[in-house]
């Protein structure tokens, strides 16, 4: 074999700590290496040409590039070599940057390690075989998980481009948190007024299949070819018959039985309910945990009044299979609940603020409901305890955010803006009222954002106090807020009528479970990771699965909408081609030695191993061996390690390739 070794300086990134010329020199002496050189930027055009030229001149048949991580430039170098006539799978990369120069200081030691790393891959590449990419068809349909503003935007973009979308929402209605908001910053336009037309557009779109009150149960397959199982939860109402007249909701005798999730627990709802008047779809749900019929077997009033006979008490959860080519995750966020502290939660909480203990200490979303015209008080600014108008409100920012000792280390990004908005909304409704904001810094980065906060301070007279609140307690119907003004250097005490906590945005509680179902990575807070923080912000670690909105990190509406459109564009890129090329890293069976034990079949997570009969000329079955369906195989190699007779091998990571690396890691042996 004629191997060429190319060592990249990566400017100074590698060259500073690894003596690249001497690495190239050492590599030239390895057996099989006929050409070795170093260059400043191997990934640049001249660098790639250098490789191509050497392949032609020296008649190379395999290449090892010592440069950055294969996750970075493996494709680049495979492509370059393939242009020069070498099969791309005869190219290996030694990671001299992320795994060597960037993590070490000592030049001789790093250089020695670099030589070892290249040697191991030179030995490996000797056993590489030419492989041909697998071509698979693309299912041009998308699944969008989550019907908040991000999911709505992504669905509409894909559907308007001409492809079908399945939109799955776990709540009875789409709309998400945006439908709960009163007004939006920095324009103060009514949230529902701009959102509900989009919701209706989704509902009426001929290419969007809306599945509300449903959850993703299982996902199989791979980019371009996912098979998704969706659990359609029992609504107890036949959605194809219901007209949304609402008679059943009116007649339900169990009126104030449960706290409304939509109103953040500030109002109650009947056992049969539609979350809010503009709900899409406008189909009610029976809450079986409180319904009299499900508890005692009597009532059925809703069934009696329904002229369409749409009520179905016997309805069961249905499991529906959908084939899609791309998945967009837009599951959004939840507010950090400070009153409940489950044992497995590392968050220590803010007991001293009295949330859950004092009725007039509320969180940001509850304030939205109070301020909203569709809220429990029809937009009248009244406090929960005695329904009087609060004359003094204290807003506290960063409750849970930017507080590693008690909450989360990250910034929730939107609270500075929504607190300014809350204070403004309050001042617009209660002119003689006083609004105080305790803040750490004002983070108002965004178009017209800082101007908005200035407006709250300068035009609406909201009083901003830099400092933290140490304690809140109730005295004579007032909430005594004790804090510190760190600019004036004095202690502050305010007797407030109501306190609004800007609690942190957190990941949905089941987001890590969903991430596991989708095989995408997530961070320690449960937010789903992007594939690259800068260059792949909407992709995930799994091909064909994209993210949008606050399921990735705290994010406001404009950012979520842009991200959703970006994710939709990524899905559309996928749908632009009829077939997709997949890495040929799949398992292959040696039928001559396979004894047919099928251990490989038992450990395969993808049902990719099948049984194949080998027949003689007369058609008699001589033996049954394993056969790998390369369309299903994902290339994990668990079968390879399990096979007792080593008859199944993972192409690209075969036993002899790995033994070659092990055998060569240390010079002495």
């Amino acid at each position: 074999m004629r191997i060429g070794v190319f060592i990249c300086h990566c400017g100074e990134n590698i060259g500073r700590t690894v003596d690249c010329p001497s690495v190239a020199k050492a590599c030239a002496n390895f057996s099989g290496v006929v050409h070795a050189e170093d260059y400043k930027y191997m990934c640049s055009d001249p660098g790639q040409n250098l490789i191509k030229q050497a392949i032609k001149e020296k008649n190379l048949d395999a290449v090892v590039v010592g440069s950055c991580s294969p996750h970075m430039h493996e494709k680049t170098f495979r492509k370059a070599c393939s242009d020069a006539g070498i099969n791309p799978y005869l190219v290996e990369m030694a990671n001299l940057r992320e795994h060597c120069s960037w993590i070490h200081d000592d030049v001789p030691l790093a250089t020695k390690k670099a030589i070892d790393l290249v040697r191991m891959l030179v030995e490996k590449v000797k056993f590489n075989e030419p492989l041909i990419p697998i071509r698979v068809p693309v299912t041009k349909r998308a699944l969008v998980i989550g019907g908040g503003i991000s999911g709505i935007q992504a669905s509409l973009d894909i559907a308007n481009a001409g492809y079908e979308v399945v939109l799955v929402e776990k709540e009875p209605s789409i709309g998400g948190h945006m439908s709960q908001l009163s007004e939006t910053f920095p324009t103060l336009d009514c949230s529902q007024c701009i959102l509900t037309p989009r919701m209706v557009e989704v509902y009426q779109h001929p290419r969007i299949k809306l599945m509300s009150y449903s959850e993703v149960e299982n996902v199989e397959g791979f980019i371009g070819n996912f098979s998704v199982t969706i659990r359609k939860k029992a609504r107890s109402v036949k959605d194809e018959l219901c007209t949304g007249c609402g008679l059943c909701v009116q007649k339900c005798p169990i009126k104030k039985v449960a706290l409304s999730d939509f109103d953040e627990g500030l109002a109650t709802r009947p056992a049969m309910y539609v979350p809010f008047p503009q709900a899409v779809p406008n189909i009610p749900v029976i809450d079986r945990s409180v319904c009299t019929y499900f508890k005692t077997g009597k009532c059925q009033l809703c069934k009696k009044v329904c002229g369409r006979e749409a009520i179905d008490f016997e309805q069961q959860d249905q499991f529906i299979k959908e084939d899609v080519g791309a998945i967009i995750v837009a599951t959004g966020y939840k507010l950090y609940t400070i009153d409940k502290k489950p044992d497995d939660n590392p968050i220590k909480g803010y007991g001293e603020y009295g949330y859950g203990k004092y009725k007039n200490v509320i969180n940001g979303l509850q304030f939205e409901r109070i301020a909203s015209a569709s809220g429990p008080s029809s937009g009248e600014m009244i406090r929960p305890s005695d329904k009087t108008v609060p004359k003094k409100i204290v807003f506290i920012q960063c409750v849970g955010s930017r507080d590693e000792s008690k909450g989360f280390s990250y910034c929730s990004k939107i609270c500075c803006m929504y607190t300014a908005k809350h204070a403004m909304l309050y001042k617009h409704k209660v002119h003689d009222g006083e609004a105080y904001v305790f803040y750490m810094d004002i983070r108002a980065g965004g178009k017209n954002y800082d101007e908005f906060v200035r407006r709250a301070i300068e035009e609406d007279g909201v009083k901003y106090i830099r400092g933290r609140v140490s304690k809140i307690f109730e005295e004579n119907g007032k909430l005594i807020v004790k804090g510190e003004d760190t600019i004036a250097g004095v202690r502050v005490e305010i007797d407030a009528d109501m306190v609004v906590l800007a609690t942190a945005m957190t990941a949905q509680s089941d987001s890590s479970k969903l991430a596991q179902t989708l095989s995408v990575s997530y961070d320690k807070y449960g937010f789903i990771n992007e594939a690259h923080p800068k260059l792949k912000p909407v992709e995930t670690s799994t091909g064909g699965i994209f993210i949008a909105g606050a399921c990735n990190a705290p994010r406001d509406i404009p950012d979520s909408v842009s991200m959703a459109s970006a994710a939709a564009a990524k899905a559309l890129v996928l749908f632009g081609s009829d077939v997709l090329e997949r890495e040929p890293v799949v398992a292959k069976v040696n039928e001559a030695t396979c004894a047919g034990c099928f251990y490989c079949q038992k450990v395969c997570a993808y049902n990719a191993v099948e049984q194949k009969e080998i027949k003689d000329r007369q058609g008699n079955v001589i033996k049954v061996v394993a056969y790998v369906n390369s369309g299903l195989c994902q290339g994990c190699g668990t079968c390879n390690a399990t096979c007792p007779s080593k008859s199944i091998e993972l192409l690209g990571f075969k036993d002899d390739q790995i033994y070659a690396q092990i055998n060569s890691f240390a010079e002495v042996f």
Partner: protein
Amino acid sequence: METEKFEPKIVAFVCNWCTYTGADLAGTSRLKQQTNARLIRVPCTGRIDPVFIIKAFEKGADGVLVSGCHPNDCHYNTGNFHARRRWIFFRQLLDFVGIDSSRLYFSWVSASEGKKWVDVVDGVINSVREKGPFNGYKKLNKEIEIPVK
């Protein structure tokens, strides 16, 4: 003293999706670590044949580290569970074949745990440095006169 100069040789088998990427992150974040580890990238910990580990010791490794995705986070759904089950049995056999099983290390390092990877690598290197060189196979090789390349 020879032991003072001893620098352990560590072979690390890491999965492509979690630990290799986590090690990349350590690099991108410029988190310094010792130079003793040599990584071998495999798609999944499920791919790691126990014989790889024995082979690494035979070829002169003083310690072996195996690291992959956290349980439930495997890119291939269940590969790391198969690996974990395999190690439970395999570990008990190591001492039997003459390899000090405490020289075999396992960890789960995710793609976002660059710092943890540095701690794991340095921890393994320091621990093996304390144990001293692993001579079992070297002696054996000498006895049966395996030619040294």
